[in-house]
């Protein structure tokens, strides 16, 4: 099978205007992925499916990843040589930078015809609040139907062109997207017999006075 950068090069030559970049995976698995931009995603996906050299006809896995806004602290060291000829003076300068978050959808593609894979595709939304639309790849691989619904349900990515984009695991009236990192679970505490940690905090909030009867340590005869 072609390596991901070969595929990227081929894609760039086939789709001149498209932005395809390689995202390398530092782990031992070394499953590098291709980041596509939303505009060309479906055309590229169709190409990958139908290209005789790749024939990625099987979309195994579709999933979302939430990357919240992240404050990145960069430390830059500037060393100014001491004119007196002593050791260089090192000045550490910390700059804070806000890396904007996004929602990412990852597709793992394999080829049943040629028995190779995986080719990993990534799509990223503009941000996590209002630009959350991505093209649906369900018309290319039917396997995405339920999985994209799940990503929509749990992450809040809106797939344009999906035939039946409804919530799948949560109920229809549910508001939030539980798999987002900043999801706050609803305050629906029921008293549990092991109040400690978070549960204890909730227990105190819900049962201010008197607190629920915790099993007291009674020395047994």
């Amino acid at each position, binding site marked *: 099978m072609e390596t991901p950068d070969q595929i990227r090069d081929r894609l760039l030559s086939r789709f001149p205007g498209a932005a395809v970049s390689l995202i390398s*995976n*530092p*782990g*031992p*698995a070394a*499953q590098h*992925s291709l980041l596509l931009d939303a505009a060309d995603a479906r055309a590229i996906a169709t190409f990958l499916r139908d290209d005789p050299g790749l024939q990625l*006809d*099987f*979309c*195994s*896995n579709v*999933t979302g*990843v939430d990357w919240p806004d992240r404050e990145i602290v960069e430390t830059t060291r500037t060393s100014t040589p001491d004119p007196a000829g002593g050791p260089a003076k090192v000045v550490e300068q910390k700059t804070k930078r806000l890396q904007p978050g996004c929602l990412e959808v*990852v597709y*793992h593609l394999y080829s*049943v015809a040629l*028995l190779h894979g*995986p080719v*990993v595709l990534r799509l990223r939304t503009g941000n996590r609040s209002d630009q959350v639309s991505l093209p649906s790849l*369900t018309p290319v*691989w*039917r*396997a*995405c*139907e*339920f*999985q994209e619904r*799940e990503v929509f349900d*749990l992450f809040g990515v809106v797939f344009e062109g999906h*035939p*039946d984009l409804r*919530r*799948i*695991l*949560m*109920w229809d009236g549910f508001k939030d997207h*539980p*798999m987002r990192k900043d*999801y706050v679970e609803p305050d629906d505490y029921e008293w549990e017999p092991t109040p400690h940690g978070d549960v204890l905090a909730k227990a105190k909030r819900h049962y201010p006075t008197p607190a629920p009867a915790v099993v007291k340590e009674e020395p047994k005869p």
Partner: protein
Amino acid sequence: MSFSDPSPLSAAPGASVRAVHDEFHGDLLEVSMGPHHPSTHGVFRMMVTLDGETVVKLKPVFGYLHRNHEKIGENTSYLGSMPYTDRLDYLCSMTNNWAYALAVEKLAGQAVPERAEYLRVILAELTRLLNHTCLAGFLLQDCGASGTPLMYAFREREKILDLFESLSGSRMMCNYQRFGGCRVDAPAGWLDAARALTDGYGSFLDEYEALLTGNEILMARTQGIGCLSAKLAVSAGVTGPLLRAAGVAYDLRKVDGYGFYPRFDFRVPLGAHGDTYDRYMVRVLEMRESIRILQQALRDIPAGPIMDPKAKLRGFRPKPGEVYSRIEGPKGEIGFHLISEGGPNPYRYRVRPPSLINLTILEDLCLGHSIADAVVILGSIDIVLGEVDR
């Protein structure tokens, strides 16, 4: 839900839904099958629209058993997610364990000792036997046999569960695999017991097939029902016995060759029609192949350690990276997608549930068939709600 928008993807016959009211035919009947229906295998629900008894529209409804497994996985340590994988497909906890352990091992670049690999193959094939046996029983139960095939299936299943119990301490929630090996070694006599079970399983299958495979009623109920084309199967991401019943030779044990599967001699049975009968028979034949693998594995299993000595139980923090790893579970391709940021918990923990994705084609298979067939088709897809809803 309106009736005028059938899923544009459904290419099955009968996909066009006529108007609800029709002067000559009377009403379409909308039946909500589930979540408390006896044959939806748990809390699955199908919104079925019937024309007489013919299914003209079928929408699966999920989520009654949803507990956000993936969120739990992201808030639990790598090790702590292992017992939760038991509860995905609670018939196949051993393969779930293996799939997860394999993913983490790939993420952290760990090796597994030889004996542990053999044990994993043995346990995975026993799980396959267990799952397919149960499926055959449930399928026949859905066909209306009054419990007899199911009880026979469960009788044999108990024997496998006994093996699991004496090895891992629990019948269904095994929690047995660890990153870099297995938790405990097989106790004395366990391998002999497994050999005895394997050798006796063939005769059970013979009897089971005598009971049902040649049965005219079963054939009438399953042959030609719910045909799945190879093209749709691949496109819809259908995996496992369903895919092979549709005639696609795609078995991850052969394709990926994970574990020690390349060392074993076994064949992959393929169906020609993709109907319910093929799905049933492919599983029966797979069981016979599993017996062959088990016999080889139990013959060849070496002595030695079962745990990578470098493996860490506490304070396990893989380096940043990402992995998608999959194995051939009894129900299809079960995969885990993990992203590590270097912390004790995975940053992203995703399960690729074969049961859920195999349900994509449920409507296509059921359209145009009667409601009785829909139940049997659902049974032949083989779902476990713990995995569908997660």
